[in-house]
């Protein structure tokens, strides 16, 4: 019988005011998240033979060798490693890569890990990267990164389709309502459209409350075969489809600033593989680095037509009780955003599918779509998860 790869464990670390409780290095917080996910899966660390890592950390010098460093720290000797780093969407791609490796018999238990202590270390800055290679043509102009690139996309989307700042604000307000139901969320006080509109201008048309948080955080996912999951008595989440794509790195090279091409490509493949229609999706968890990211993603995923994202999110459609539950943990906008957020989309989707999401639990979630975006609208990776 063919091997089927399933998700059997999810884990994260407690946050308070956006900082990891008890503090810790970037290696410590990843080890804690890994242990939480493995405990959830009822699988011991010694069984892990596949390690998938992407991060912003590493010992400076030639190469970063993230999986090699973390494997050593965890005391494991993986025979499959993947350090694909396409930005915050890397972890959705890791699920796809791990599924292929497990189904081929290349590994049996895959651990996907991310962690960051950027808030505790105050290591985040808008200045961006050194002006080498392709960046010679980006940051000499003083573009605040990454918000400036997203602002250029937002402005173009508004120009082409009449999208308004108030429509973008709808997303921030709805996401905050979800965060208010999540005790782990960093920002839980309700906000209004006016609060978003009157928040500090950052890079027009994006304002402070259009932007994700800067927090710590760590998360992990464990995958294995369905047979192994049954043997351990683990809860299984099935992986029905996946896809990934990237189109550019420099914002100047984005094919169309008002169109999220990478998400169109990755989601079409995922839907095709899953063999389900949009109607079958009960829940969407999509990367919300900025409000515009969400709006363009919803269009690219095909939940509304191109240019109609602004209309789609109006009247708090994506809020608790709305017709389209979205980013139910409070998202990068209000829950946490430790630099690369994609792993938390997966953690939340699995918790919702299992019915473990507490006050924010969405009723009748059998199929969920998770979509990560990385870089500056550069990469997309989609995963469709289901209970059966």
């Amino acid at each position, binding site marked *: 019988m063919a091997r089927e790869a399933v998700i059997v464990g999810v884990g994260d670390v407690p946050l308070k005011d956006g900082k990891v409780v008890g503090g810790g290095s970037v290696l410590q917080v990843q080890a804690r998240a890994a242990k939480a996910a493995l405990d959830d899966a009822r699988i011991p660390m010694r069984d892990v033979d596949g390690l998938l890592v992407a991060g912003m950390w590493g010992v400076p010098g030639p190469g970063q060798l993230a999986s090699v460093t973390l494997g050593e720290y965890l005391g494991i000797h993986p025979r499959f490693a993947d350090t694909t780093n396409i930005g915050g969407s890397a972890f959705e791609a890791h699920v796809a890569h791990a599924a292929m490796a497990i189904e081929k018999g290349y590994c049996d238990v895959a651990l996907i890990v991310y962690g960051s202590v950027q808030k505790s270390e105050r290591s985040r800055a808008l200045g961006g990267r050194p002006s080498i290679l392709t960046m010679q043509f980006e940051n000499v*102009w*003083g573009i605040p990164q990454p918000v400036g690139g997203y602002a*250029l996309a937002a*402005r173009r989307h508004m120009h082409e389709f009449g999208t308004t700042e108030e429509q973008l604000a709808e997303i921030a307000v709805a996401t905050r309502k979800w965060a208010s139901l999540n005790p782990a969320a960093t920002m839980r006080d309700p906000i209004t459209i006016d609060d978003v509109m009157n928040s500090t201008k950052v*890079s027009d048309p994006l304002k402070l409350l259009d932007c994700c948080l800067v927090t710590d955080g760590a998360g992990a996912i464990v995958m294995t075969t369905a047979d192994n999951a049954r043997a351990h008595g683990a809860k299984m989440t099935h992986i029905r489809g996946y896809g990934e794509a990237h189109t550019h790195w420099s914002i100047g090279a984005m094919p169309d600033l008002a169109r999220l091409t990478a998400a169109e490509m990755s989601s079409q493949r995922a839907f095709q593989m899953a063999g389900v229609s949009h109607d079958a999706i009960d829940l969407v968890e999509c990367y919300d680095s900025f409000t515009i990211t969400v709006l363009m993603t919803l269009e690219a995923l095909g939940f509304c037509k191109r240019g109609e994202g602004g209309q789609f999110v109006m009247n708090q459609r994506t809020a608790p009780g709305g017709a389209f539950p979205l980013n139910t943990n409070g998202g990068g906008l209000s829950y946490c955003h430790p630099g690369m957020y994609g792993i938390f989309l997966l953690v939340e989707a699995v918790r919702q599918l299992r019915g473990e999401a507490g006050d924010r639990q969405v009723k009748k979630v059998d199929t969920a779509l998770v979509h990560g975006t990385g870089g500056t609208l550069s990469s997309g990776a989609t995963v469709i998860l289901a209970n059966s």
Partner: protein
Amino acid sequence: MSEPQAYEKPQPVIDPGTKPFWDAAREHRLSIPRCRACGKHHFYPRELCPHCHSDDLEWTDASGKGEIYSYTIARKPAGPVFAADVPYVIAMIALDEGPRMLTNIITKDVEQVRIGDRVTVRFDDVTPELTLPKFTLDKD
């Protein structure tokens, strides 16, 4: 006598693939690659044409004219070295030759910038070795 103020903003680390662009800028020319195989221009400069992947490329002087494809007004600076410039405009220009490039719009009134505005290159000699091609609004 006071020393001229040092330019502290990010400067490109010029490499062999990009040197012709920066050399031309120092001579106040906007030079971009054109593909002899498909006839299309591209920017930033690459070793292979990103449209047809030919390696048969030549450097050509662009007109320095174009229009604003999108823009943002930075209300927060990209680090302390840009703090004195706030608010300033970063724009993506669609050059008349086709490619888009990121740049600054130099204007006294950042609020008047609009998508579709016609623009013309203006060379800013920021150091004796470095010239940045920025743009001005034709309506200014």
